[in-house]
C-alpha cells in the first residue's frame, strides 16, 4: 500500500469517525436520552433545573430563599422573592422511590417555610409554619427529608406569609418521574403561571392585590420575554402547567389538539384523557398536556383570558370606542399641548408607538413580527415546530410554503417583511 493510499485510507477513516461523532452529537442534542436519567429531562423555559448531589443514596438539593431581581422582559425588572436567584425557583426533578433531602436556607427579611404541594409525606415534613414546624427564621437552615411515593407534576411554595411570598414569586416545580418511563416524550416543558400587580413606574409587586393584576407570566416572564418552545416536527411533546396565582388560566394552543394527561395526582389513565385545544388550570394544581407536534409553524401558546395576554394594562380608563374626538382634542390641547386623542378605534393605534414611557414600564403588546406588530404580551409564547432542526435554538420566523398563507384578495400572498421599526411620536 502506498503512502498516498494509506493517507487516503486514514483520511477517509477519520472522516467517517468525525461524521459518526457529529451524528452522535446531533442525536444527543435532539433525541431523548432516557437512558441517562431514566426520563426525558424537563425544560423549564427561562428557568433552570436544580442540580443535586448524592449522599448515601439520598438525592440532596439545596434551596436558598432570597430576594431576587427578575427581568420579566427587557425594560421591566421586578423586585421579587425566589429561590437560588430566580423565580420561579429551580425545577427539582427526581424519580418515584427516591429519597430526597432538601436544605432550605432563609435569606429573606422575614420567616418562611417550604410546603411540598401534593406530596404524600410525613406530616412533620409538610412545611406549614406554625402547624407542622416552626417558621424558618432569617439566617436559619432547615432540612426536609422524605421518600417519594408518587409521581406527577408537583410544586413547592412557602407556607409562611403565603400571600406575600407567593405574590413576590416564591414557587417552583417538583417533578417526580415514574420509576419506569412508560410514557416517554421527546420534549417535556414546565411552565409556572403567575400574576403580578406592578404599578407603572414601580418595581415591587403590590402584594395586597387580589383581583386587579397587570402582568401575567410564564415562568415569571412576559412576552416578548418568554422563550419559544422549539420542537422538531413529529416529536411527542408534554407541557406541564402549574398555577399558584389568584385566577384560573385557560391555556390555549394553536394548530394542535392535545390530551390532558396528568396533574398533581400523577398520570391519568388513558381512558380519562380528553382532547381539547384549551386546558383550564385551576389555582393550586397542575395540568399536563401531551400531543404530537405534527403541524409545522409558529403556534401561539397563551392564556385565553385576553387581558392576561397583555402587559401592564390599566383597567379604569374611559371607554372612548366610537367617540369622535377631533375637535374636542383641540380644546384639550389648549391646556395640555402634548395631548393626542386615543381609543376611538380600539388599541391597535398604539402599535409601535414610542413616545417614551414611565421608567420600568413596557408597552401593552406591540412586538414586531414578520407581518406587522404582534399585539400580544403577558402569558404568551410560541411553539415553533420545524421539520429539520439540528438544535433547539430559536429557528426564527416560520416561512409558510407557497399557497398556505392568507392574503389580500386579488393579490398574491405578501412576502415576509423585516421586523417593523418602532414608530416615534410625530
Amino acid at each position, binding site marked *: 500500500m502506498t503512502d498516498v493510499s494509506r493517507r487516503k485510507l486514514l483520511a477517509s477513516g477519520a472522516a467517517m469517525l468525525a461524521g459518526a461523532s457529529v451524528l452522535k452529537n446531533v442525536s444527543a442534542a435532539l433525541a431523548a436520552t432516557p437512558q441517562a436519567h431514566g426520563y426525558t429531562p424537563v425544560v423549564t423555559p427561562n428557568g433552570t433545573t436544580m442540580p443535586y448531589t448524592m449522599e448515601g443514596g439520598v438525592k440532596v438539593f439545596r434551596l436558598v430563599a432570597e430576594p431576587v431581581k427578575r427581568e420579566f422582559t427587557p425594560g421591566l425588572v421586578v423586585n421579587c422573592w425566589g429561590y437560588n436567584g430566580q423565580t420561579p425557583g429551580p425545577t427539582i426533578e427526581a424519580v418515584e422511590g427516591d429519597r430526597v433531602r432538601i436544605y432550605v436556607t432563609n435569606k429573606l427579611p422575614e420567616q418562611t417555610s417550604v410546603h411540598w404541594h401534593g406530596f404524600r409525606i410525613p406530616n412533620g415534613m409538610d412545611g406549614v409554619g406554625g402547624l407542622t414546624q416552626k417558621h424558618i427564621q432569617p439566617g436559619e437552615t432547615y432540612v426536609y427529608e422524605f421518600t417519594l411515593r408518587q409521581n406527577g407534576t408537583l410544586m413547592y411554595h412557602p407556607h409562611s406569609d403565603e400571600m406575600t411570598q407567593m405574590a413576590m414569586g416564591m414557587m417552583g416545580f417538583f417533578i417526580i418521574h415514574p420509576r419506569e418511563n412508560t410514557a416517554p416524550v421527546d420534549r417535556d416543558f414546565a411552565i409556572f403561571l403567575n400574576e403580578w400587580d406592578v404599578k*407603572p413606574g414601580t418595581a415591587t409587586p403590590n402584594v395586597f392585590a387580589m383581583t386587579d393584576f397587570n402582568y401575567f407570566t410564564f415562568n415569571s416572564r412576559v412576552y416578548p420575554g418568554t422563550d419559544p418552545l422549539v420542537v422538531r416536527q413529529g416529536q411527542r411533546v408534554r407541557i406541564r402547567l402549574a398555577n399558584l396565582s389568584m385566577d384560573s388560566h385557560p391555556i390555549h394552543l394553536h394548530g394542535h389538539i392535545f390530551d390532558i394527561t396528568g396533574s398533581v395526582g400523577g398520570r391519568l389513565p388513558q381512558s380519562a384523557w380528553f382532547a381539547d385545544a384549551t386546558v383550564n388550570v385551576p389555582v393550586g394544581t397542575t395540568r399536563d398536556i401531551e400531543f404530537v407536534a405534527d403541524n409545522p409553524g409558529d403556534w401561539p401558546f397563551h392564556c385565553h383570558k385576553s387581558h392576561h395576554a397583555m402587559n401592564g394594562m390599566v383597567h379604569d380608563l*374611559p371607554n372612548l*370606542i366610537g*367617540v*369622535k374626538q377631533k375637535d374636542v382634542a383641540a*380644546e*384639550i390641547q389648549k*391646556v395640555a399641548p402634548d395631548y393626542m386623542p386615543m381609543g376611538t378605534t380600539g388599541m391597535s393605534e398604539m402599535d409601535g408607538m414610542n413616545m417614551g*414611557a*414611565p421608567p420600568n414600564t413596557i408597552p401593552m403588546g406591540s412586538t414586531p413580527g414578520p407581518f406587522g406588530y404582534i399585539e400580544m404580551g403577558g402569558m404568551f409564547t410560541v411553539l415553533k415546530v420545524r421539520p429539520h432542526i439540528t438544535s433547539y435554538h430559536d429557528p426564527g420566523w416560520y416561512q409558510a410554503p407557497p399557497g398556505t398563507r392568507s392574503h389580500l384578495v386579488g393579490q398574491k400572498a405578501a412576502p415576509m417583511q423585516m421586523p417593523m421599526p418602532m414608530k416615534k411620536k410625530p
Partner: protein
Amino acid sequence: MIILRLFAWISLALLGAGCLAAPVWADPAAPVPGLRLTDAVRTALANNPDLLARLQEVGVSKADLVTAGLVNNPLVFASDRFPGGAAPAGSQSNTEYSISFDFLDLALRGLRTRVAGLQLQQAQAGATEAVNALTAKVTEAWYDLAAQQQILAQEQVILDGSQAASDLAQRQFDAGNISALDLNRQKAETSQIEIDVAGIEGDLHLAQSRLRVLLGEAPRGEIAVSGTLPPLPAHDPDEAGLETRAVASRPLATVARLGPEAAEQSLALQRKKAGLGEVRLGMDTETEVNGVTETGPNLSFALPIFNHNQGGMQRQQARLLQSRQRLLAVKQQIRLEVSSAYTHLETARRQDELYEQQLVPIRQRIMEQSQLHYNNMLLSVYTLLTDREAEAQAMHQQVEAQRNYWQARAELDRSVGSPTP
C-alpha cells in the same frame, strides 16, 4: 394756589425720594397694555378727592397762622349829645370821642403765633402722612388688580380644561359609553369651576373699582394694569431698626410729637389771659355843653374776681396730658404697624418660596409624568386634565402669595414713613 404749590412740592419730594413703591415693569417679552404703577400713583395724588380735601387742612392752618399774627382793630367811640331844656342858653351839644387798643391782645400775639405755627406744622405732617397712605393704598390696589388679572387667566385655563372634559363626556354619553350619572358628575365639576370663575371675575371688577376710586374716577368702568407681578427681590429689608426709624421719622409721629409742644404754648397763653379778658388802653376826649373840652387816657379791663380763666387753664392742662398720652399711643401704633407689616412680608415670602421651589415644580413634574402615563394608555384623559387643573391652581396660589408680598411691602413702606431698601 398755595395749596397747589404745597401739594406739588409734597408729591415731587416724595417721588424724588422714592417714597412710592417700586414700579411694576411690564414683561419685556410680552408687554401688556395698561396702567403702570408710577402712573397710577401720580394720577391718584393729582385727582383723589379725599387727599385733596385733606390737603386743604394745611390751608386752614395757614389761615389760622395769619389770623394769629394779627392784632385786634382799635375801638373808636363817638357820641354827640344834645342839651335838654334846663341847659343854659347858648349850650352846645356834648360830643365825646375815644379810641382804644386791646394791649393784652398785642402782648399775646407772639404766643398765639407760636401755637398757630406748631399747628401748621402738624397739618403739614398730616398731609404728608395722607399722601403716603394714599400712595400705599394705590400700590396695594394696583398689585391686587395685577394679581386678579393673572389669576383670572389661570382660572380660564382650568375652565377650558374642564369644559373640554365635559364635552368629551357628552360625546361618550352620546355614543352609549357612559351613564347619565357619570356624565352629570363631570358636568357638576365644570359647573362648579364656572361658578368659581364668575366669583373671580367679580373680584377683578371690585379690584378695578377700588383702583378707579383711588384715582379719582367713577367706580364702574374698565381698567387694566400693565405687566405681571414681579418676582420677589432677593432680600427683604433688615428688620433691625425699622421701628425706631418709623417712630423717629414718620409724619404721623411728627404730628403727635408736636402735640405736647403746642399744648404747652396754649397753656401759657391761657395763663397769660388770667381772666382779664381785654385790657384796653386809649384816649378819650369830651366837649361839654359849655364848650369845655376834657381829654385823657382811658383804661378798661375785667376784674378777675370770679373768673380768672381757671376753666381755660384746666382745659389746656388736660389737653397737654392728652397730647402726651397720644404721643405714646401713636408710637405704639406705629411699632405695631411696622411689626405687622414685616410679619406679613415674611409670611408672604415664605409662602412664595414654597410655591416656587416646591409645589409648582412638583405640579409641573406631575403634569409631565401624567402626560407620559397617558401616552402609554396608563392614565385617563380626565386624570390628565385634573392634573393640569391642579398645576394651574398652584400657580394661582403662588400669584396670591406674590401679591401679598408686594402689598406687605407697600404697607411696610407706609408704616415706616419712607421707602425701605
